[in-house]
């Protein structure tokens, strides 16, 4: 997705809305997807014989630059799909594209799959893609807002999902396959290690060359209006106002909205 630090200005024309100069803006891996990736790599390190595939739908040309950073962080094999990543695509189209790419991975065993992804994305917080993807693949054990996974010796695992009130719901799942839509997890962003990067690049470049365009034009979806949130500045400087009165004013202001 385009780097959120950039000026992201929607433009509408024919077809899907897009971001102004989207192709030219630097791109990053969606932060939620990032947490999922790092958790997956961390888990894979602990479970011998497991392997991480990063299935990514984005503009192929932008993916390459993103990989220059991401490929240095953890070991994975990239499966690239070419398509827009502006946030105006629709989960109902993205999920089938991802499902098809996953099923096309040579030798993939669906029954042993742990499908990690962000529980939402920073460009489009619909929170639907992972769930639809799971349904398409027939994986119905799904967890959303995940912050932790602990795998037991018998192959079952415990999952912590975010629930209301800053609490976690603890579930135990008998085994794979499962879908985990990650919240932030517990890991920091791994540091860049060019040595890891050099190893990953061996598969990243061919994957990018192989990337097929996906049809994710959100056909039939109508965008009524897209706009940037308006910046507002209503500053009033007051001295020595008691806390109660401040609170009262805030409540008043909220209830006006």
């Amino acid at each position, binding site marked *: 997705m385009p*780097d959120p630090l950039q*000026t992201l200005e929607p433009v509408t024309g024919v077809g899907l809305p897009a971001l102004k*100069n989207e192709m*030219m803006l630097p791109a990053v891996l969606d932060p939620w997807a990032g947490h999922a990736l790092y958790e997956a790599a961390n888990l894979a390190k602990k479970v011998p014989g497991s392997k991480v595939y990063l299935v990514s739908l984005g503009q192929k040309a*932008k993916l390459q630059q993103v990989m220059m950073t991401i490929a240095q962080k953890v070991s994975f094999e990239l499966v690239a799909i070419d398509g827009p990543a502006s946030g105006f695509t629709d989960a109902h189209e993205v999920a089938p594209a991802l499902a098809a790419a996953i099923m096309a991975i040579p030798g993939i065993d669906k029954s042993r799959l742990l499908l990690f992804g962000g529980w939402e994305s920073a460009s489009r917080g619909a929170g639907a893609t992972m769930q639809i993807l799971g349904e398409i693949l027939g994986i119905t054990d799904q967890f959303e807002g995940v912050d932790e996974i602990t795998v037991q010796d018998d192959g079952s695992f415990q999952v912590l999902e975010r629930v209301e009130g800053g609490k976690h719901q603890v579930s135990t799942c008998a085994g794979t396959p499962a879908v985990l839509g990650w919240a932030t997890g517990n890991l920091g962003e791994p540091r860049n290690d060019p040595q890891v990067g050099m190893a990953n690049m061996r598969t990243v*470049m061919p994957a990018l060359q192989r990337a097929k365009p996906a049809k994710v034009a959100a056909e039939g979806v109508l965008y009524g209006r897209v706009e940037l949130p308006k910046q507002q500045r209503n500053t009033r400087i007051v001295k020595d106002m008691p806390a109660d009165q401040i609170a009262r004013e805030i409540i008043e202001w909220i209830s006006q909205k």
Partner: protein
Amino acid sequence: MATPSVEKPTYETIRTLPGDDVRQILWRYSDRYDLQMLVQSVRSVARGLVAHLVAEGARNTHEWTDRKNELLKAYDESGVSASFLEPEEGGFIAGPKNMVLALVAYELAWVDGGAATGALAGCLALSPIHERGTVEQKKHYMSLCAPPQPGEDRKPWRGSFCLTEPIPYVGVDTGMLNGKLRVAEWKDGEEPMLQVDKRGRFITNMGFANFVTAAVQSVDERIKGSCIVILEENDPGIFDRGTPTKKMVHQLSSTNDPIFSLKVPASRIVGGYTVKDGVIVPNFDHSEVIEAVFKRTRVTVALMTSAKLLSAIEPIIRYQRGRFRGAEQATPGTIRYDLGLQQREDALHRLVDIWAMGEASAALGFAAARCFDVLDPLEKEKNTILEEKGIRGGKSEMKFFKGVQKDAIDFLNLCAKPEEARANSTRFVELHENKLVQYAILDAVAGVLCPASKLWNTGKGNVLMREAVSLMGGYGITEDCPGFLGQKWMDSQLEATYEGPEAVQRRNLTVTMQNELFLKQFGNWIVEMRHIAAQKPGTGACALGTAMQLWLWTYKHLQHAKDPQGNKLYQSARQGVTFPMADALCWLLASRQQILDLIELEHRGPENPVVAEGLAGTVQFLTDLCHVQTARSVGEVGRICAELVHGFRRHPAWDEAGYKGCYAQDEMDLMEAFVPGLPACATDVVGLDGCHPDKAGPCANCEGLEPFQRLRARMDNCLTGAMLAKDRAAEALTKVMIPEALDYPQ
């Protein structure tokens, strides 16, 4: 008063700040994934930890604090420390390292020059060993410095390079060594033990270095000449790190004045030694080693200042645009709100100047780095060939290369011919494949590009950094100016000083630019610029070609021109002549490279969909920047050359000799009968009573300088359109999209 409306854009203009994809093409590493990854990795350290340190005021102490020490770990983890090493030594990039280090320096200096210096000083310490060390020395010290691999429990070694000594000894002049070397003990059949006494001044990394490569001079008849020795912190004797230097700049690097008095085995002489008639003869004297080292490491310093200039663009645009937002009079939708200071032409034009110079300086620096990357393997091949021929040492090598030089000139002459003319030339193919010829040709260019980039990028860059600071108003000289512009301004002064200040670079250039092989190539480049101008007008290449001609004419003229006392003008003692010529050359080289990079972008851009998207606009804008910069270069070259060509001639006075060149009034009256209006042209007319026009003396006679005058007039004419380019570039600055916020500290 608002900006007068300039030509309304019917052309494409740059849409976003040039991203990595554009830079990779401009600086020719779009197919080097290793370098691209290194850039991202270094960037995260620079814009992360380094930027945090600057923001939290870590620069406000001279001490090497624990917090600063965290940088070392970050360099190790991000691959910076290992970037200098070969894979078998614990590195991850094989082959020449000039572009590698150039990019590391650029990325770190984008945030903080001191961080860049500190990170690279370790490589500087290893460089003598890398360039001239024995196989064992290389293997030993490179591996010690390699960061630990996963699972390895080892602290990597850090090094310092110690040449500079307390005044009155070694500074710029590397000859006056005070560091002493003598034999401490030499038992029969055993390795001699040496006593080293050396004091250093301003030695980088000294706060924590585990080893030092130090320049010393023999004061013992059993050791010949000078050399570089490797000192270790645990060697017997004194290894005193000394006091930290009270620097006002680069405080994220450690600098101390150390004192060493140590006993070391003779095997620590860099490059080894032989024993001849009971005398230890080092294989390389200290200046041989230093020359090989500085030749390369100065390029990285040059790029530190380039990074500063280019990093200043975004914060300045943001400041300019947002300057009045929030004021009651500046409501959204008004020009004041939208454009802020960018409604003023001067603010835009000055920023265009900074950007143009930044592009030119980065272009020059990276070109130098790439040149050394090609040169390094050629140099190795040359060494092997010479060794096979049994040629060793300065003089015999120079003699041998006289022959090579002839072939090289032949080759360059063939290069200057149209392609069809040399298509069937076996001589051309033969010379093209001759490694020694190719080495000589490239070495001549490298010898110029290195001091030129160090001199020009840092010295002139520093002046433009001042402009950058001033564009931020009062904010510019505060510690929390976005982009740390004030710190960068000061830092660039050090970059102009260490590893040899400007005078050293100028001196170096005045020697290397005299190389016939360089001058020959320079001549070919004039043709190249004209050709580019014909293919793609608008870059200023044609004007640059004329300026290059003017420089070459002046250079040749100065070779035999004399001052009124009959003294030769062009000679090494006359720095007032040779140094300005070196300065002028730098402007030309930088502009040329900027134009070449642009052509590369235009050519290769369409291959990358990301770049292709806005390519027309990006190219238009960068073309305009080339034109702006060329105009500046042309101006500088014109000024310098004119001063030198005219300035050493004595101005005629109203005296007997002076009167000889004037018309007398009665002659004039007579001639007007034949040539009506003549008195209006001939200014120097003196009356019979000796009265003369009210000025310093008769106008100087320019005999012999007509070609110069024609070139100069033509060159001024070539400036046509340059200010239109500047107006277009300025307009583009008001439209280019910038990110919402600066991405450091992050």
